[in-house]
């Protein structure tokens, strides 16, 4: 019964994501403010960036859950898997962003504040993964890396204030601007939101698989003499 439901959910995700891809190319307008059809990458780039931030936040929540929720190994596995997914989506967002920058700004990389911030965040979570690989004992690794994930959560918001002062940004305004008014065409907005939901569902699926695979690997390690 649960098996049928979960298969149904996965099928629905396939349909939903496919519909979003169709919508990105045929339903939404191409924003005339941008060169050619380049605005369509928005429907892939922005959801990836949002998903990576959701993943980092989820990693911090699971880390706090590990430290103050009875030190259960499954929380640590979930945090590590979330960071891995966050880095994956973050790298994809960086690549799609710099493809767009090549078309719109003429160069793949020009240290726009958004580019600086995403690279610093990737450095942070790259350091997290390096830290994990440097500890063999599972309990110590879980404890220390949970602390590091929480430090990352409190330190990274500072970049939001600091980096824009260093160089001026050419990055388009966030979709919902300061006056809380919708700044985009409604069709673009629908596809963007739909696509973001699809990417987050994909994140939770990949995350679930990664955590379960790690649980199996840990259990196998325990069986070794």
């Amino acid at each position: 019964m649960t098996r049928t439901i979960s298969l149904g959910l996965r099928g629905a995700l396939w349909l939903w994501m496919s519909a979003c891809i169709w919508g990105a190319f045929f339903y939404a307008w191409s924003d005339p403010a941008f060169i050619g059809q380049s605005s369509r990458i928005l429907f892939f780039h922005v959801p990836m960036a949002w998903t990576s931030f959701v993943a980092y936040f989820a990693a911090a929540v699971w880390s706090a859950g590990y430290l103050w929720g009875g030190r259960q190994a499954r929380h640590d596995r979930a945090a590590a898997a979330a960071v891995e997914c966050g880095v994956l989506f973050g790298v994809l967002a960086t690549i799609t962003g710099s493809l767009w920058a090549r078309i719109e700004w003429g160069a793949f990389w020009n240290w726009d504040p958004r580019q600086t911030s995403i690279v610093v965040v990737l450095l942070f979570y790259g350091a997290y993964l390096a830290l994990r690989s440097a500890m063999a004992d599972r309990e110590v690794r879980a404890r220390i890396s949970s602390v590091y994930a929480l430090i990352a959560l409190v330190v990274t918001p500072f970049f939001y204030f600091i980096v824009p002062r260093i160089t001026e940004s050419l990055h388009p305004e966030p979709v919902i601007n300061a006056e809380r008014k919708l700044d985009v065409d409604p069709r673009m907005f629908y596809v963007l939101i739909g696509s973001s939901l699809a990417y987050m569902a994909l994140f939770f699926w990949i995350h679930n698989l990664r955590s379960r695979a790690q649980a199996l690997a840990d259990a196998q390690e325990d069986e070794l003499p």
Partner: protein
Amino acid sequence: MELGGLGWIFAVNLIIWTGLFLFLLRLDRRIAGLEAGKSR
């Protein structure tokens, strides 16, 4: 279909997504199988 046109790039995206989907589905089945083997 024009190479590099919207239809073409849509098809490429759909193929990549379907491939990823099938890969994840297979992975899910394998992990579920291993989990069932563990509990027995």
